[in-house]
C-alpha cells in the first residue's frame, strides 16, 4: 500500500466502485432468494466501503505531492504582499514629505507660531505612518 500514490489509489477506488456496481446490477436484474439477495447486498456494501475508504486515503495522500508547492507559493505570496506594502508606503512617504516641506516653508517665514504648527503636523503624519505600518505588519 505504501508504494501506491494518490492517483493509483483513486484508480483502485474506481475499480472497486465499478465492481460494486456490477454486483448491484446483478442483484437488481435477477430474481434471487432472500438469502442470495442478502449475501449479494452485503458483498456490494463491503466493496463500497473499500471504495469509499480508498477515495479518502487518496485525498490524504495528495499532501505528498503538494508539500513543496505549498511552501513555494506561500513564500511568493509573502513577497507579493511585501511589494504591495512597499507600493502603499509611497503614499505615506508623500504625506511625510509634504509635512516636511510645510515645515521648511514655515522656517523660511520665520514665524514661530507657523513653525510650531508645522512641527506638530510633521510629528502627527510620521506617527500615522508608523501606526499604519505596525498594523500592516
Amino acid at each position: 500500500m505504501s508504494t501506491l500514490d494518490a492517483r493509483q489509489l483513486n484508480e483502485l477506488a474506481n475499480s472497486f466502485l465499478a465492481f460494486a456496481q456490477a454486483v448491484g446490477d446483478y442483484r437488481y436484474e435477477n430474481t434471487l432468494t432472500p438469502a442470495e439477495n442478502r449475501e449479494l447486498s452485503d458483498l456490494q456494501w463491503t466493496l463500497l466501503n473499500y471504495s469509499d475508504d480508498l477515495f479518502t486515503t487518496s485525498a490524504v495522500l495528495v499532501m505528498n505531492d503538494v508539500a513543496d508547492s505549498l511552501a513555494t507559493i506561500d513564500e511568493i505570496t509573502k513577497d507579493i504582499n511585501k511589494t504591495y506594502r512597499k507600493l502603499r508606503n509611497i503614499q505615506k512617504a508623500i504625506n511625510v514629505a509634504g509635512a516636511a516641506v510645510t515645515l521648511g516653508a514655515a522656517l523660511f517665514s520665520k514665524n514661530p507660531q507657523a513653525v510650531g504648527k508645522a512641527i506638530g503636523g510633521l510629528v502627527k503624519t510620521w506617527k500615522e505612518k508608523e501606526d499604519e505600518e505596525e498594523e500592516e505588519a
Partner: protein
Amino acid sequence: MQKATSTKTSTMRSILSGPLFLLCLCCLLPGCVNLKKVNDYSAGSLKSLKKFEEIGYTFNRACLDRCELEQLRSLRLRAGDCNCSLDQQADSIALLIYNSVKGYFEGMTRISDGKVTDYKPDALTKALKEGSFGDLKIGKEEVDSYAAISTILLRATTDIYRKKKISKYIEEANGPVQVLLSAMDFNLAANLNGKLNVRKQRLENIYVSLVNDSLASLYDKTRAIEDYNSATRGIELRQKQLTTFSKGLKTIAAGHQQLYDSRNKITVGELKELLTQYASDLQNIVDEFNKLKNQS
C-alpha cells in the same frame, strides 16, 4: 531668458504628461504584462476560486452520511461509532491548498490593481504654496506643473516596477500554481465526487431491498422510490456543482499557464485578448455555479 525657461518648462511638461512617454516606458520592459488584464484575470480567478466555500459538501460530511446509511441499513436505533478522522484530514488538506492559492490570487489582484499606484500628491501641493522662500520664488504655474509631473513620473516608475515584479511572480509561481490547482481539482472532482458515486450506490443498495421486500405495501414501495429519486437528485446536483467548480479550476490554471507562456513573447494586444477570454469564461462558470446553488 525668462521666456526661454518658461517654454522649456512647458515643453517638458507636455512631453512628460503625454501618453507617448508612458507607452515608451512601458514597452522598455522585458516582460510587458498588461496590468489591467492581469488584474481582471486575477480578480476573476479569485471569484471563481471562492466558490469552494459554497460547495457545501465535504469529506467529513460524506463520512457522516455514510454512518447514517449504515445505521439505516442495519435498522439500529442508536448510531454506531462513526470515526471520520481521516476524512477530516482530507478536508484540512483541501482547505490548506485552497487558502494558499487564494492568498496568491488575492496578492496578485491587489498588486495589479491600478488603485495601488493612484497616489494623491495633495500633501505636497498643499505644502508647496506659491510665494517667496528666501531667494527662491515659486509661482502658481510651477506648483501645478510640479504636482502634475511628479504624479505622472511616480506612477510610471511604480508601474514599471509593478510589471517587472508581476512578471517575476508569474514565472516563479506557475509551477506550484499548476500543481496546487490540479491537486485541488483531483481531490474534489475525482475523490469527493467518487464518494458521492459511492453514496448513490449505497442508496440503491438499501432501496432495492425495500422495493423487493415482499412484506412491504404498494404505498411503501412507491414512497421508497420517490425518496430514492429525491436523494439521487440531491447527489447529482452536488456532483454538477463539483464539475462546475472543477471547470473553473481548469480555466484558472490555463489562464495562468497562458500568462506564463506569453510573458516575454506575444504582443500586449494579443495577451489582452487572451486574458479577456479567460476572465469572461470564469464569469460564466461563476454564473453557472450560482444557478446550481439556487436549485439546491
